[in-house]
């Protein structure tokens, strides 16, 4: 039994290919069925988001899994097998575990530290669990991965500082106003960035917005979208005293707002602060506005710099996260190592016990009642002693190996040499049934 993951993500594959191999709920189910029924795969969890499609599996031998999943995914998506192979990655064993943990900790995301991935992993796992394509190994792995993601999030500041321009703008505004609820926004121009920033602000509780644009109809259109009001562009200074936050992203070649106008507005609003966000290039707002009492001006460069600084800080946090992941991979591998030792020893003992009993019965039958009880006991004791002596060292060694790296191999060899896989299917290489406790937990 081996853990393996096959996948494509934003780093390895272009978006055109990612779109094609992306899987919805039914797609996940179909793929899982195909792998479980036809290809000898033991457990499957497909994970498909807009940046990645990955298939986590438990397979008897990694190379089988690779070929099977490649064929299945190519067949499902219609992508040429060779193209898919070139854009994909394949990890097995510990490195597959590490890969999932990194994904869960959002170290592998396009935006390091983003928060959605945890929910996506959870959903993918729940779906697979519902479709009964998981068992002991993947159940444990995914549950652990979600814990790792949570741990990284609480123990490092990886998700704390915004890394996009519009979210930095919101963050800065909140350093002035604390709560954005009840504040008023004045949006100037119809630039994409301005719109994005306004949307972001609105999602933080802003409920009153004025939109000004050279083309009045466009302003009306945007205002209608947010339930705000359009204002004539030449009257914007009349509305300035009402605005707590001003976002400007016009295409004007000159300043749209000058220091004098802001000073006047500030007097009218009794020095209540105004936060200016200038995302236009060339700039819309006179840089002198920043010198006005209680006016704070951030232009696109300021915001970008802050976003980059934050991204840098996230990288630093990512290194802390790597350490946590290394620890957790270690702990999972340890569990994986012990997983099969106990049932293997039990199976070995049971087999030996069966052999001993059968042989004893045969031998004793030949004496045909001529033995005294004492002799009989002696023979039985001797048989038991032989079995115990023979099994003693392998048992001890197996227990020891369970704490060592690669202990899995001993278990595997033991099973093969003593033929345990055939006689004891429940704990052997075939797909084990879910234990009840594990079903209850999810």
């Amino acid at each position, binding site marked *: 039994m081996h853990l393996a993951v096959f996948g494509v993500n934003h780093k390895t594959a272009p978006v055109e290919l990612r779109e094609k191999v992306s899987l919805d709920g039914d797609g996940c189910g179909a793929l899982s069925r195909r792998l479980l029924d036809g290809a000898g795969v033991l457990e499957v969890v497909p994970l498909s988001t807009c940046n990645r499609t990955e298939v986590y599996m438990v397979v008897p031998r990694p190379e089988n899994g690779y070929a099977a999943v490649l064929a299945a995914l190519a067949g499902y998506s219609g992508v040429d097998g060779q193209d898919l192979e070139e854009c994909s990655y394949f990890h097995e064993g510990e490195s597959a575990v590490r890969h999932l943990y990194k994904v869960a900790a959002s170290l592998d995301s396009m935006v390091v530290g983003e928060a959605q991935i945890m929910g996506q992993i959870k959903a993918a796992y729940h779906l697979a669990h519902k479709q009964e394509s998981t068992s002991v190994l993947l159940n444990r792995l995914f549950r652990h991965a979600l814990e790792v993601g949570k741990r990284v999030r609480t123990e490092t*500041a990886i998700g*704390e*500082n915004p890394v996009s321009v519009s979210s930095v703008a919101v963050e*800065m505004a*909140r*350093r*002035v*106003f*604390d*709560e954005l609820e009840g504040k008023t926004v004045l949006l100037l121009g119809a630039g994409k960035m301005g719109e994005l920033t306004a949307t972001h602000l609105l999602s933080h509780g802003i409920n009153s917005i004025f939109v000004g644009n050279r083309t009045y109809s466009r302003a009306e259109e945007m205002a209608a979208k947010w339930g705000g009001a359009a204002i004539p562009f030449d009257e914007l200074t009349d509305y300035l005293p009402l605005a707590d936050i001003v976002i400007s992203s016009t295409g004007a070649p000159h300043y749209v707002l000058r220091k004098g106008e802001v000073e006047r507005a500030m007097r009218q609003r*009794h*020095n*209540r*602060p105004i936060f200016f966000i200038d995302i236009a290039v060339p700039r819309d707002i006179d840089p002198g506005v*920043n010198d006005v*009492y*209680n006016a*704070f001006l*951030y232009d696109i460069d*300021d915001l970008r*710099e*802050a976003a980059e*600084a*934050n991204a840098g*800080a996230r990288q630093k946090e990512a290194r802390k996260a790597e350490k946590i992941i290394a620890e957790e991979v270690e702990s999972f591998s340890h569990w994986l190592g012990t997983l099969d030792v106990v049932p293997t020893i039990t199976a070995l003992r049971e087999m030996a016990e069966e052999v001993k009993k059968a042989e004893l019965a045969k031998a004793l039958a030949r004496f045909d009642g001529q033995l005294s009880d004492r002799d009989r006991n002696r023979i039985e004791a001797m048989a038991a002693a032989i079995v115990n002596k023979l099994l003693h060292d392998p048992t001890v060694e197996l227990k020891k190996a369970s704490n060592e790296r690669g202990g899995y191999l001993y278990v595997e060899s033991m099973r093969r040499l003593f033929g345990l896989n055939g006689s004891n299917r429940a704990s052997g290489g075939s797909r084990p049934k879910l234990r009840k406790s594990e079903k209850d937990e999810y």
Partner: protein
Amino acid sequence: MVKLESIFAIVTLLTYLVSGGIYIWYLVTSNRRAARLASMLLVLGFFCHTMALGMRWIDSGHPPLSDSYESLSLFSWGLVLFYLISERKYPIQAAGAVVVPTAFIIQSIALVLNEGPEPLRPILNSGWLWIHVSIAMLSYGFFALAFGAGFFYLIQEYLLKKQYQHALAAFVIMFAAIGLAVGLWLGFIWAHPADAVNQQTGEHFNQYSSGDIYKILGLAGAGLVIALILGFAAGKGASRPGFVKRLPSLDVLDEVSYRGVALGFPLLTIGIVTGAIWADKAWGAWWSWDPKETWSLITWLFYGGYLHTRLTWGWRGRHSAMISIIGLVVVLFTYIGVNYLLAGYHSYAKV
């Protein structure tokens, strides 16, 4: 009893020192475990502090408000209590890096000035006095809160205006200036200049011995060094993107500073009125232009000015923050400075 009290007082001082150090460490590293540890130590220190003050009360038979040690110690006790309560309610552990060292400094000055419990002079033993002193102290506490919020307002505003550049320099300079001022101030309080008379003109003046000058320079230097370390730590912390999250927003700081003054001012008014009532009983005059009275009036007018500019002229933000900062200097002068630098009826508060 006295011995046990001083043991408690010293344990208090030590725990405040260590806890303050850990809070500063937290400010720099944002290690949450450090903040928890610091908070636990602070609770322990606060317990010892409460014990020490309680013993003093039992020992002397009157509330611990009668001399510099008692009132300063009670003041830092109130500061820590206020902080501990706020910390339970709001995520303001970063403020611990300022509040706890401040409590430590006040408590150590108190201990330096401590000369043991003394029976009260009969003139001081009056119900009005206790009301007068405790209300005045409470108003000072609120002014201190306004000061703290105003101080952080200036830092946050500066950082916002400068797009969070030069954070380190801003913190170091601000803290160093305040540390130097506080150190010099305390040095002057600690020093006991002899009263000398100019032979030619007959004017009185303060004669500082070399010991006094060492005390002044020593405390100024210590204040500067502590403030530089604090400023450096805070600046280092502020250079990390996460820090400013732990610093409240301008709106909140402005509001807190305003509320501090808005609560402190009426209390000060009551304090002055009750003082006048008591003065009438004790000295037979409502108001005698004793330096303490004069300076209380100046303080009152100053904070009155804060409220006036704010409510009628619409001042807020930086200007108000600056007034609240200077206001505390005036308060400190009224509270402590007057006792030591100017002679008057209130000078029995001198040790």
